[in-house]
């Protein structure tokens, strides 16, 4: 079976390769004539052109069938998630009180985040709604009419509103940092079954509660008013202002890690999904260093 291949010298191999790349006798490039290459390229051009066209067509058909205002399915978003601000890459709030450069960026992030909550903006764009109940705006005759958003007063966040003198800086300079909490937007979501909802924060483990110290919630009690719900989607609910709750850590023990968990306290909301650690709750690490 083992038949020796004919031994060829290096030069022959090279010559063969050269002949393969360009064979002047049959005028072939890489084993094909120019016409043959042309036809092959034309074929693939047409073939892939056709496929691309088909792809574009089916995508177009797909987009035609998709409602631009409300997604077809929302089954994955049954429980809205929660998030903190300032948001960093690791869900940490860690800084040194005496070194301003370690917390400056948190302050900047919070200022940026609260920009749209300025009274001037709110007053200009949003309506004053009746608090304590859902602000429903059903479509009457015309579908998808633009919806009004309800005003959120930045001042309701108290010391965490960042409205004081620049030095106060959300309490970071004083070692009493503010962290903002928000509930993820989900279209047509009505939290709390018509009862008021609020956010509560605590140390993740009860035994750490003492070291974490006191916390102040703004608005008081961490309440989120029902008038900010439901959300109608960014297309019709253009100026929607997401309600925010602030938590200020008043005397957290310095130089150690605190694991804080805040959860949305609303009737009919389950915030104990084992796999989704951010469904209806948020956990983050807080560390305040002092020299």
């Amino acid at each position, binding site marked *: *079976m*083992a*038949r020796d291949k004919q031994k060829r010298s290096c030069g022959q191999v090279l010559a063969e390769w050269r002949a393969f790349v360009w064979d002047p006798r049959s005028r072939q490039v890489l084993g094909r004539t120019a016409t043959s290459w042309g036809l092959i390229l034309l074929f*693939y051009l047409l*073939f*892939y052109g056709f*496929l691309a066209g*088909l*792809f574009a067509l*089916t*995508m177009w058909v*797909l*987009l035609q069938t*998709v409602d631009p*205002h*409300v*997604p*077809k*399915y*929302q089954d*994955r*978003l049954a429980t*809205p*998630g*929660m*998030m903190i601000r300032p*948001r*960093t*890459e*690791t*869900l940490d709030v860690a800084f040194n009180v005496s070194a301003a450069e370690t917390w400056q960026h948190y302050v900047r992030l919070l200022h940026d985040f609260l920009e749209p909550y300025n009274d001037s903006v709110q007053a200009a764009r949003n309506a004053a709604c009746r608090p304590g109940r859902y602000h429903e705006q059903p479509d009457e005759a015309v579908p998808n009419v633009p919806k009004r958003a309800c005003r959120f007063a930045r001042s309701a966040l108290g010391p965490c509103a960042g409205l004081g003198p620049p030095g106060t800086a959300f309490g970071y300079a004083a070692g009493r940092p503010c962290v903002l909490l*928000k509930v*993820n*937007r*989900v*279209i047509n979501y009505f939290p709390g079954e018509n009862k008021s909802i609020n956010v509560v924060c605590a140390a993740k483990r009860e035994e750490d509660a003492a070291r974490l110290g006191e916390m102040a919630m703004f608005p008081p009690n961490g309440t989120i008013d029902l008038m900010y719900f439901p*959300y109608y*989607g*960014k*297309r019709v*609910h253009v100026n*929607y202002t997401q309600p925010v709750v602030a938590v200020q850590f008043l005397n957290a023990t310095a130089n150690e890690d605190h694991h804080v968990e805040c959860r949305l306290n609303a009737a009919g909301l389950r915030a104990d*999904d084992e*796999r*989704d*650690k*951010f*469904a209806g709750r*948020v956990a983050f690490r807080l560390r305040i260093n002092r020299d």
Partner: protein
Amino acid sequence: MEEKYGTSISKGLSSARAAEILARDGPNSLTPPKATPEIVKFLKQMVGGFSILLWIGAAFSWISFGIQFAQGAESPFDNLYLGVVLALVVILTGIFAYYQEAKSTNIMASFSKMIPQQALVIRDAEKKELPADQLVVGDIVEIKGGDRIPADIRLIFTQGCKVDNSSLTGESEPQSRSCDFTHENPLETRNIAFYSTTCVEGTATGIVINTGDRTIIGRIASLASGVGNGKTPIAIEIEHFVYLVAGVAISIGVLFFIISVSMRYKILDSIIFLIGIIVANVPEGLLATVTVSLSLTAKRMAKKNCLVKNLEAVETLGSTSIICSDKTGTLTQNRMTVAHLWFDDQIYSADTSEDQTSKYPFDQSSQTWTALSKIVTLCNRAEFRPGQENLPVMKRVVVGDASETALLKFAEVVLGDVMDIRARNKKVAEIPFNSTNKFQLSIHETDDRNDKRFLLVMKGAPERILERCSTIMINGKEEPLDSEKAEAFQTAYMELGGMGERVLGFCHLYLPENEFPDTYPFDTDSMNFPTSNLCFVGLLSMIDPPRSTVPDAVSKCRSAGIKVIMVTGDHPITAKAIAKSVGIISATSETVEDMAKRLNVPVERVDRRQATAAVVNGMELKDMSLQQLDEVLCNHSEIVFARTSPQQKLIIVEGCQRQGAVVAVTGDGVNDSPALKKADIGIAMGIAGSDAAKNAADMVLLDDNFASIVTGVEEGRLIFDNLKKTIAYTLTKNIAELCPFLIYIIASIPMPIGTITILFIDLGTDIIPSVALAYEKAESDIMNRRPRNKSKDRLVNEQLAVYSYLHIGIMQSVGAFVTYFTVYAEQGFLPTTLLGVRVNWESNAINDFEDSYGQEWTKYQRTYLQWTGYTAFFVSITIQQVADLIIRKTRRNSIFQQGLFRTSFLTPRFQYWFVAVPFAILIWVYDEVRKLFIRRYPGSK
């Protein structure tokens, strides 16, 4: 002698002494060829094929797990699991392939285990039956007709002993054995009987001189194991395929590794991409599928009497382009049968088929026939073994030599109960056949009560019989044997001889009553009765006739482009006659000698190239140079090698292989084993074959029938076709598995399909259809194609890869991506939103990821959506694979020509099922158009 072997001829060895020698020399059996240790076989399965690539993937996974774990990342265990899964895949497929191999090896093992042979030994002055492997040097053994010689034996007493050395030397004539030392060469001398040969008749006693591997056979068998055994064509094809796919996998992997690194991906991420690309490219389930397909075919072949020792040999048989076949037993029935009769100056042919279906085709009314039949019946020492009355005549076992058996069966079929006829014509005297007289004679009473004469009947070599005759019977009347009648006899004799048949002459004489009364004392030594001036009655000729299925099988080979070469130890004339009757030499073709005869010119002046057929004698072959042999093999399409020794078989096989042919060789003798090993596929005979031959062969023909080889060829070709379909089917989805990775890296979209999902497709949903393709019926007529050209018609060629990868594969990918985008769009992420989101999408810290509608998603919600995407992608690949399966059912025919079977291996679980359906239909339509073009314009690329 006694001294040399420390034994006593009368008493034999003592048991104690024998035990001592046995301990020293070991048992008297051939050491089986050294088998590869099981663990090595197992490890080979673990690292063969794609396993290395997957091991590398697993290693990378573990490395990245280690790094991530050390860095304290949040979910490093994904990579650990991936590595474990990859390793499991390799190990499980390895175990599976090993198990399949082992199972087919076991079939062989059970087959070769035969009933232990017994030998009659004199030990402690007693005769004992001992298992043959307990024999030691110096034992005295007794042998009788029908026994297998248990060891190499120096004979010390013989009585009419003849041995059949064909398994050793290839000579089919039994050779007589005596106590006399006749030749220096142990192979030539008459006083040694060899291990594993058989004693045909007579009895003998001898001293064991060699046992086990030290016997002549043992030495030859160990020689055979030295002949290298190359890779089977399918192994080469699969290797080629593995290289091709691995090459693609590695180059794409490395290319995208470089791209992703230069796109500022982290090295660790790039490594994970690399693993994904490798896993997507490697058809994990394919090698297992190939093994399953081969073993299914092997099973099917076993049912058709082809036992395959090496799974890969299944396909080798299909690519065979030359079959070197034995004559005796393979092409022929291996029993002498009366083929022709000559009496009343006329040749009649007898029925030679296995089952004697045609009835009395010759004229039986003539008185001459009555006389002839009487001689045939009476002048015959062969007898049926008792207790076979219910068997058909041709299947009964006969005690007696081949010619006598043929005559006995012939008489039994034509006349009825021969034993009864013999009983009614009591035998009074007999001279058995011997090589000096060349005749056999017996004298009988007649069954006619009124006729008190004795009947002398005689048969033998025709010319010797004729010499003893003065009259000849024509139409029942005795007529003087004049020169004209003698001439007629000569013509008939030459004609029958020219057909390669063994001719016997028959004559008789009624002894006059007055000279030989009832009580006449016949004495065979003094021959007190006439043995000349007899009455010549007729001639009978015998041949070992071809099996009835063989001519058909040979013509099938011909239309399948397979050259059949007959290699036999027989006489050229016989060989040529059989070759002509089975079609190995077709009716119209001529040998050089035939042409010379026809043109009436000397052989030298004939243009050798014009002769299509050739009969090459072993003596000529011995003097040929390799070039001359090549020339013979090249120039003649119909070749018969006659009078060849088994050693020359090896030369012929090598000659054929030099022509680039895939050669199948049949053989039965020990001496055939080098040729069997050398051949691309060695085929041993199950009935006539020796153990050594079976060991050396890749395949065993259970019924020794040539036609079974042809069935095997058909199966082999079918499996090649079907494997091609399986591979085409399997390769297609690789692109649909690969594209997601590439687009994921380039466009930074959420991962469309996960590595584990890919493994699930490859090893789960795709295995059954792949195996189903192996069951596909033969397309058009595969036996009308030429054997595949090893260098051109590859299992995986450029066209197949291009068509699978660049045409169907791309279509599948497009279809799968449409499904993917649909899933995401309907959940809130429109296609435009998805581009470039990868980093944020995969960030654990971002739990308010905004979709196209302004909604915010946590990481887990996104991951869950991603899994939905995997499943949808998976489903759409699977649904499109259904279309792929349908199109792969045929290579050229339209599906509407082949017929569609229901494929129902999917259960609907998702609405996303249907997204890919238009693409599946597109794939089908596209392929139908392609097949239409191929049928319309065959031959073009």
